């Protein structure tokens, strides 16, 4: 008798559990279906933000158009996730393909002044090579032009006193993104007097953007 009751309770418990699990799965899948479009959009925006500024608008629009073709919220979310994952690789390819803006300038008669730079994604090993004991931040660097400039060669003046000369494209090939803005102004090398930078915000036609 007791065994029969226990068996009945076990069967009922199993049925109720299966029913509850079914409801939970249904709720979760409904929730995912409801949220997936928004998550997909957020993922694509996040992916675009991983790209250089010059590529963001283009790919954001391109991805939005491709997303529009896909049927089903989960498939769309999957697409957006894959795009986000590949954004770093895309950024590398984009940077590799773009001619350096600074390479087109005549650096012999002008000098880069008051540049704000941002350095991203420098791994620990690279930070050591650059003479830093920690992961570089935008406050660690200013970019200047060496006294004997060559095209695309920049001088990195670290706030802790170390100066390094680097080739811009070498930095990019190592996955280091350097971007900044500033003014190119006439500079009298005879007197060595540097002009002051008058801008507080990046100009619309910033000459040095990555």
């Amino acid at each position, binding site marked *: 008798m007791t065994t029969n009751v226990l068996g009945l309770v076990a069967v009922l418990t199993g049925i109720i559990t299966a029913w509850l699990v079914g409801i939970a799965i249904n709720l979760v899948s409904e929730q995912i279906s409801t949220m997936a479009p928004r998550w997909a959009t957020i993922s694509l925006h996040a992916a675009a933000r991983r790209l250089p500024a010059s590529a963001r608008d283009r790919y954001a629009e391109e991805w939005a158009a491709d997303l529009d073709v*896909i049927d089903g919220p989960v498939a769309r979310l999957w697409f957006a996730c*894959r795009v986000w994952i590949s954004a770093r690789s895309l950024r590398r*390819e984009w940077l590799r393909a773009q001619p350096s803006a600074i390479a087109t300038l005549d650096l012999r008669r002008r000098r880069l002044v008051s540049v704000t730079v941002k350095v991203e994604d420098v791994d620990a090993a690279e930070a050591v090579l650059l003479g830093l004991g920690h992961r570089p931040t935008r406050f660690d660097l200013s970019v200047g032009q060496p006294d004997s400039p060559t095209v695309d060669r920049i001088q990195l003046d670290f706030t802790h006193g170390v100066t390094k000369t680097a080739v811009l494209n070498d930095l990019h090939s190592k996955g280091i993104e350097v971007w900044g803005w500033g003014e190119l102004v006439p500079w009298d090398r005879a007197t060595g007097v540097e002009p002051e930078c008058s801008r507080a915000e990046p100009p619309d036609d910033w000459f040095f953007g990555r």
Partner: protein
Amino acid sequence: MPRSSFARTALLAAFLEDPTEPAYGLDLAKRADLASGTIYPLLARMEGDGWVTSEWEDTDPVDAGRPRRRYYRLTPDGARAARAELTAAQRRIGMVNPNAIGGLA
């Protein structure tokens, strides 16, 4: 010649199905049977190498009711190089049949 890979070879083959027909990224990914995320870095590299050009479709997003698509097309140099790379890839895997590649003969 750029380093080849399965994904790259698949993409080139998809392009060569109809070299003159422009295609957007997701369409190429489907034709090449590639993951959607893989296609954009590959296209960016090919564009940087001059194998591919891209342009926005000539349509108004408001009229079309959807965002503009970015269409990719092989350049003449890219088509030649792609055929050569595909032929080389086929030889590497023992499928020596250059005539199987559209337009090679």
